[in-house]
């Protein structure tokens, strides 16, 4: 099965406003690709363009050698001929058809003979564990069941590309957790290429094989989830991925306080150039005896927020407030002064892009 290729895809509505700007993206065959970003970043538009429900104003979309959209060459394949699957955020089950009829619809359109249709619909419903509700109508199902039927409806036609538009956002927390595991399993069983749209970074990190972060219609970073977490390509990705978010301290022309302390440290560690901002992830801030190479500073504890398995601590370090996330109990009270340290700093240039030269320098040091 082939890759999905988007090259120089743009989409604008009427005037100059671009929903998607010059997007280049390759979804490898068999990948579970997550399009991640805040609402309005163009991720759903991108998904709908792949499905053919919206048309790009420029660029080419292809699956393997098959060009689906090419504005420049005037090529277009309508959604009904693309043979993809799409699960909508609101499921979009047809209320006048039973669950079975909903799932059989796509097979009927493909002129699959009745006995086979029946068998495949049942198999798809079994796969998502709603085969017991086969003869009911969508309005008689719970939200989670409707979600599964919507999924089964697409799985029944066995599409090589499955598109999911925030399919979990209308479920409650427990169901969402369950469906995440379920989707991962379905991905492995069906072998389909999945493109998944979400604004929930946790969803992206837990399920995807590849994450594409978008903002303002532009691709910010495309990487494997853990790579993205460890090495965010720019300040936007760094602040969007991770919870609580990474703190980024601006380094001005004459840095004082925390910024000054951080700058002195990275310069002493051989930073190749002066950074515009230094980022610290909350879980990278530790307490206790620091290793020799780590940055360290005295911190005043302002509040301790225990959450069962983790402890969030609000700290005042020099002139700044930072959050630290610890997975071991923090024995401190407000007013205490602790030594905190970290050996994982993220350096961003004045343009906001990650200073990749620092990564190399840090490893060497």
């Amino acid at each position, binding site marked *: 099965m082939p890759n999905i290729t988007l090259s*120089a895809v743009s989409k604008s509505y009427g005037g100059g406003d671009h929903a998607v700007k010059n997007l280049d993206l390759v979804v490898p065959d068999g990948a579970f690709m997550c399009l991640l970003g805040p609402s309005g970043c163009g991720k759903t538009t991108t998904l709908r363009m792949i499905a053919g429900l919206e048309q790009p104003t420029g660029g080419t979309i292809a699956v393997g050698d098959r060009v689906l959209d090419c504005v420049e060459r005037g090529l277009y394949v309508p959604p009904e001929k693309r043979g993809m699957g*799409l699960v909508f955020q609101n499921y979009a089950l047809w209320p006048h058809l039973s669950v079975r009829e909903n799932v059989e619809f796509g097979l009927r359109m493909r002129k699959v003979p009745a006995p086979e249709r029946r068998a495949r619909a049942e198999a798809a419903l079994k796969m998502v564990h709603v085969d017991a509700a086969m003869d009911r109508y969508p309005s008689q199902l719970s939200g989670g069941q409707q979600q599964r039927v919507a999924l089964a409806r697409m799985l029944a036609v066995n599409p090589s590309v499955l598109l999911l538009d925030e399919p979990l956002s209308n479920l409650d927390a427990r169901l969402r957790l369950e469906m995440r595991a379920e989707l991962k399993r379905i991905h492995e069983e069906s072998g389909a290429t999945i493109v998944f749209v979400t604004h929930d970074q946790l969803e992206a990190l837990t399920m995807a094989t590849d994450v594409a972060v978008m903002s303002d219609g532009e691709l910010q970073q495309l990487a494997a989830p853990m790579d993205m977490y460890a090495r965010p390509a720019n300040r936007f990705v760094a602040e969007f991925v991770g919870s609580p978010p990474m703190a980024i301290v601006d380094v001005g022309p004459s840095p004082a306080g925390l910024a000054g302390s951080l700058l002195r440290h990275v310069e002493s560690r051989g930073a190749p150039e002066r950074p515009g901002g230094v980022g610290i992830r909350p879980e990278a801030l530790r307490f206790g005896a620091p290793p020799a190479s780590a940055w360290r500073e005295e911190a005043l504890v302002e509040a301790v927020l225990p959450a069962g398995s983790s402890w969030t601590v609000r700290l005042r370090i020099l002139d700044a407030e930072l959050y630290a996330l610890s997975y071991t109990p923090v024995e401190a009270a407000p007013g205490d002064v602790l030594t905190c340290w970290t050996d994982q700093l993220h350096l961003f240039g004045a343009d906001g892009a990650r200073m990749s030269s620092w990564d190399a320098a840090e490893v060497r040091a």
Partner: protein
Amino acid sequence: MAVLTKTEPPPPPPKRRRMVYRLRVLRHDPTAALGLILVVVLAYLVVAPLVAVLSDAFRLQFGDEVHAGQQPGEWTGYYLWRVFRSQISGLLFWEPLLNTVVVAVGTTLFALLLGGGMAWLVTRTNVPGRKWMAGALVIPYMLPSWTFSLAWLTLFKNERSGGQVGFLQAQGVRTPDWLAYGALPIIVTLGLHYYPFVLLLVGNALRRIDAQLEDSARILGAPRRTVIRRIVVPLMLPALSSAVLLVVGRVLGTFGTPYVLGLPADYRVLSTGLYQSIRDRSTGVASVIATVIVIIGVLIVFTDMRLMREHRRFVTVGGKGAMDRLGDLRRWRWPAFALGMVVFAVSVLVPVLTLLLSTLTRTPLDLSTLTLDYWFAERLPGAVGFPHGVLRGSEVWEAAWNSVRIVGLASIICAVAGLLVGYVVVRGTAPRIAAFLRQVSFLPYLIPGIAFAAASLSLFAVARGPVPALYGTTFLLILVMAVTHLPYSSRSGIAAMMQLGREPEEAAQIAGASWWQRMRRIIFPIQRGALVTGVVLPFISGLKELSIVVMLTTTGTELLTTLSIGLVDYGYTQLANAVVLIIALLSFTMTSLTQRLTKSSLASGLGG
């Protein structure tokens, strides 16, 4: 592993290439084409008649060359002069205008008083039997508006207009002209027909007022009376103003009642004046009057919309604290009940029983002359134009069949067109077409029916281009009736499609369904319910419709309503009453059946 490549932004593709792509897309998605067809058809059916009537008002018609001193077809102000400034303009225009204003104001006040009072009674008090009353008091609106005028004539008619006299006159009580004909009876009978309208609008608003708003005022120390004056009434203003303007708008376009009760005493209003001008073949004058009616109608609706918009800023009706507690009338409970019963009796029982009894007696309501002849007799002596009982002979059956056929077809066209308009609007692939469709399908709402009929007559009476003269064809009746009901059906079509959203269709598209398959298997089946109501509501209102069709029917295309008016013209009281009773029965049964089946309230069908 995913691959990320950064390239310089390429120049936007050349316009021609983009056009090729757009056309490819359009070929696979007929929505835009469908929208375009609808635009052309609606523009022709809605906009073209208005243009035609306007041009008729300013072009010299055949036959007026001598008076105007111009050639036919030339631009002229002759008709403007004739209608507004000439010696007969008083008769043609100013007097009917004044009468229209008098009738409109009188009817509105009467309806407001009756409807408002009853609304308060059934929504805010513990009057006995209020649930029943709320339903029963709406019945007058289900009857054709001129039912009441025929009942009035049956009771009060004097010898002035020929034919049989009314009940009172037959009993030896002389009924003066002012009681038998003209402003007073028109105001009373129209008021009796339109007060349910006020009742529904105001009642709904009263029901939705948040009780917390009143409670807050009470807690702050306002006495009951102040609460009503300072809180309730201001909150009711939008509903009240809406009710007023809509009643005025409807009175402006109503034809049957002023025709039956006004003309015998030469009491003319704009609608009957327009009708007479058309009957007199003075097309130019008729076009000017029609244009004036259109302008007034448009002004009324715009005023209403504007007021609504202004009110919306502070109106906080709705929400959870809806009023459910009822004021205790204490010792006024039973008198209030009696009042409600009197209103019910006067607006439903008396007119219907009068009509029924009149058809069963030779001398109206004289029980010693009981007979079934007017319904069943093979031969009726004395009635030359209709020499047998209504259920004998072919006239009524043919008219009924015409009504069902014409109104039915119009309603089906209307419902399907409404849903298609909704489809194009919601699909959103052609935003400009959608916006135009929305507006143009709403346009007939602004235009009183009789004026729109006159406009359609201007356009279709003669052959224009490839379109043959349609006057006298059932086709024209179907078209005009469908177009005048389009605002309601397109509004409900848009609402139904909005509620559905585009996703169910998109899901089918993804599943591989072609446009036809999507329409046939997804959209229309899901919208079956909306489609049924979309057919039934225009059907009911079309069955009672007179103002729109009265100018368009000919001998071959007689409808029940026009047949009944024709019988009034002949002076066959009993026969005319019998036909109206048939219409009333049909419309009442269908309305209550629909309400029961769809659980929809009549209010939503009023378009108010």
